[in-house]
């Protein structure tokens, strides 16, 4: 392997051309040779810009005001030729669709080597090695377009590894992947840690899988500075609440530990992984309840989930529906589904399992081939299919696809009934703007909003049409902790106001936290419908569908406890466990 270089950043400032304010404000950072560092911060805080600076694309290719120093080993990026930098630093980006150039897999790996005028005769060996490292050897001659998202990301990694860089930067490499593809990517990364010694900077939102891989964590604040840096333990022990406020995801184990501590559970240390959390709970039990004490059994009452029984009628009922695309691909096979009125219904499955096809059928965008669909008790026929949009709203995964106007307020006006008189119209728009936190953006162009704002606007345009059923496709996709929370609280309040929510997702913690009913789709078939609790009791079913248990459910399973899937579940469980928890204290903190 090539020489080991560390990274040093001194007083780095950067402002994009055409932007009034700098993104990076005097960033100082050091990464030692061979170290793996996780960079955290909310979306838009400048993490990706910092990555581009380390890579040397800033200032060489991207124009703007650059000030300060970035050193990669002995090279200061500003004074090093781009072709030299390209050999030293490699970067993998987030979007699997927008970082691959060539039609075939082996050609893609060759692309970087070709650009640096690497001799053609030596390419096959390098390409072969790189593809072997990421487990894509059999795909060498395949078309890039036929790869799955996860395979594309591993290909992007291989293309970088073929150049044998000393420094590797990964900018949210799994943000667009489903759980099983994410797992495969990080398995590859773990394997690489042993076979290459590249200094690695990793940017990630979802950190449960990544923390075990990193030596240190660096946190950036919204003002474009480094707030804190240290080992994961130091960082999370010191300030997990502060990090959550910063919009940074905190490992589920830390979130749970903080919650348990807040009700007086005497937890030691800061568990970073579920495995550590398991140890911590076991040892605190042994410590406080005596060696022979058995674990308390999970008896958490099923609170939220009983509310449903009051609404026996169905918002959506699907009986034996199948669907095949014109090219013959069968997307759905004999699907049965029952969405209770007023519920929060989750539709889960791996990418490509048929979730979105089903949603399109439910919104009348695609015709069902056979079977029967009823919405709010009315059977959908070919005649009234175009009317479905009156009952069912659909928030697409990419909010921009639904934008039709040039101003946020016009976007909402477009959704309102054109019969409304002007005053009423204006009043409704104002109300929606306030409800969705967009009052300050009423005159902005919808396309120029932040990710979270765009998502909220797209939901608002649907809410404005006042349909009783709302389908949302991956509403928290690729968002930081804070905007994901904001979006989910909006959705929850809609549900409380009576809207039936159907949420397509593969975020199982979201299912645990919000859903009352869940259906699993696997290769076009519904293999499960029931409560999340019942689902989490069948981990083998989840695994087959390419999904995973939410982290807190994994913890419960490891401890032999059933029914503990959310922080609230665990708190209830803990409060029932007298030997350790001071009940009075618990009740106080819960406001009982």
């Amino acid at each position, binding site marked *: 392997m090539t020489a080991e270089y560390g990274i040093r950043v001194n007083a780095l400032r950067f402002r994009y051309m055409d932007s009034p304010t700098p993104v990076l404000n005097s960033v100082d950072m050091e990464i030692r040779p061979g170290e793996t560092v996780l960079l955290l911060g909310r979306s838009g805080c400048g993490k990706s810009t910092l990555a581009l600076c380390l890579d040397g694309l800033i200032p060489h290719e991207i124009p703007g005001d650059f000030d300060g120093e970035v050193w990669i080993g002995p090279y200061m990026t500003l004074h090093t030729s781009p072709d030299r930098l390209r050999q030293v630093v490699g970067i993998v980006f987030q979007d699997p669709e927008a970082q691959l150039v060539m039609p075939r897999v082996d050609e893609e790996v060759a692309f970087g080597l070709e650009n640096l005028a690497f001799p053609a005769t030596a390419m096959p060996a390098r390409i072969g090695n790189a593809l072997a490292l990421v487990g894509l050897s059999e795909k060498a001659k395949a078309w*890039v377009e036929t790869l799955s998202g996860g395979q594309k990301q591993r290909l992007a990694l291989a293309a970088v590894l073929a150049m044998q860089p000393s420094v590797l930067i990964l900018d949210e490499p799994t943000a667009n992947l489903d759980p099983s593809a994410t797992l495969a990517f990080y398995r590859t990364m773990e394997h690489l840690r042993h076979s290459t010694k590249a200094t690695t900077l990793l940017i990630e939102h979802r950190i449960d899988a990544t923390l075990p891989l990193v030596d240190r964590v660096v946190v950036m604040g919204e003002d474009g500075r480094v707030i804190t840096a240290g080992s994961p333990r130091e960082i999370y022990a010191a300030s997990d609440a502060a990090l959550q406020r910063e919009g940074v995801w905190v490992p589920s184990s830390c979130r749970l530990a903080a919650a348990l501590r807040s009700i007086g559970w005497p937890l030691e240390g800061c568990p970073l992984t579920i495995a550590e959390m398991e140890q911590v709970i076991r040892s605190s039990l042994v410590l406080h309840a005596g060696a022979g004490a058995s674990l308390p059994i999970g008896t958490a009452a099923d609170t939220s989930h009983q509310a449903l029984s009051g609404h026996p009628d169905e918002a959506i009922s699907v009986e034996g529906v199948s669907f095949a695309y014109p090219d013959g691909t069968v997307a759905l096979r004999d699907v049965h589904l029952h969405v209770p009125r007023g519920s929060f219904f989750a539709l889960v499955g791996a990418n490509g399992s048929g979730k979105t096809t089903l949603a399109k059928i439910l919104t009348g965008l695609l015709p069902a081939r056979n079977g029967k669909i009823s919405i709010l008790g009315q059977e959908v026929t070919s005649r009234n299919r175009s009317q479905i949009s009156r009952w069912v709203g659909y928030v697409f995964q990419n909010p921009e696809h639904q934008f039709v106007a040039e101003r946020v307020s016009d976007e909402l006006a477009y959704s309102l009934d054109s019969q409304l008189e002007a005053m009423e119209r204006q009043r409704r728009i104002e109300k929606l703007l306030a409800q969705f936190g967009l009052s300050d953006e009423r005159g902005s162009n919808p396309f120029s909003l932040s990710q979270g704002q765009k998502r909220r606007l797209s939901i608002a345009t649907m809410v404005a049409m006042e349909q009783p059923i709302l389908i949302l496709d991956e509403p928290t996709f690729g968002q930081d902790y804070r905007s994901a929370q904001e979006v989910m609280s909006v959705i929850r309040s809609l549900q409380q106001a009576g809207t039936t929510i159907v949420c397509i997702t593969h975020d199982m913690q979201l299912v645990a936290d919000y859903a009352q009913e869940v259906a699993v789709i696997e290769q076009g078939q519904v293999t499960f419908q029931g409560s999340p609790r019942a689902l989490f009791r069948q981990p083998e079913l989840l695994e087959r569908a390419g999904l995973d248990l939410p982290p807190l459910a994994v913890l419960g399973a490891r401890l032999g406890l059933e029914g503990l899937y959310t922080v609230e579940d665990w708190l209830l469980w803990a409060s029932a466990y007298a030997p350790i928890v001071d009940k009075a204290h618990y009740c106080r903190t819960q406001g009982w």
Partner: protein
Amino acid sequence: MSVSLYQENDTFLHRLNPVAKIAAFSCFILASTLYLDVAVPFAMLVLSWLIGWSLAHISPLALLRRLSPILAAAVGLTIFNTLFYGGPRGDPILALGPIYIWREGLEVGSSIGLRILCVASYSILYVWTTDPGRLVASLIQQARMPYRLAYAILAAYRFVPILQRELANIQAAQQVRAVHLRGHGGLFRRIVSYSIPLLVSGIRQAERLAIAMDARGFGTLPERTYYVRTPLRLADYAFSIASIVACGLLLLALGELGLLHGFLIGVAERVAGAQ
């Protein structure tokens, strides 16, 4: 969904250098546009089936099936040229009220209709048998296209399926917002309302792709090396020369058979003289 219509195989036509192949095919297409006789485009059309069948194992039926949607356009063009024929002519063979139909018009019209089928047939054969990676490599290596420009073609190629999916999504997404229910503006309005989201999301992806390309050293050196080499082989020269010879012989043979009259416009006058 496939990226484009390329059908992977390993035949003579697939192995040909893409630039040599387009030169040869252009030669057939050009020949079909030089004459106003039915025989020439028809011969070239049949030749395309023969080439596909013998050199790429593509059955003429498969090509014909792919041509069927274009048939309507070809027939339309034939009718149009027949009705509005303004060249030299004899007596009308048919009179429909004020509209006259001339034999020459019908011939020329059919010739032009066949010409379109001929263009389509060679185009399909080309796309079916040409690996896009090799096409771009040979545009750079043989046609001396600047490599940064040639890679715009590859980027374009990558974006075709991505944007096809996006366009379908946008149509659906806007349908959900009941865009189709509103009457105002019609076509013009709809073009704008689909185009903006499509272009915006395309441009965002283009930006990311450009950064990814820069990050892998695209354009840092004036000369780069090539993993895929597309040298011109004996077969490429042979096929190109054979194509030109075949064109010439075919035209000669048709002439001997007395099937050639109208070379471009000038010779059309000879038809006038002959009557």
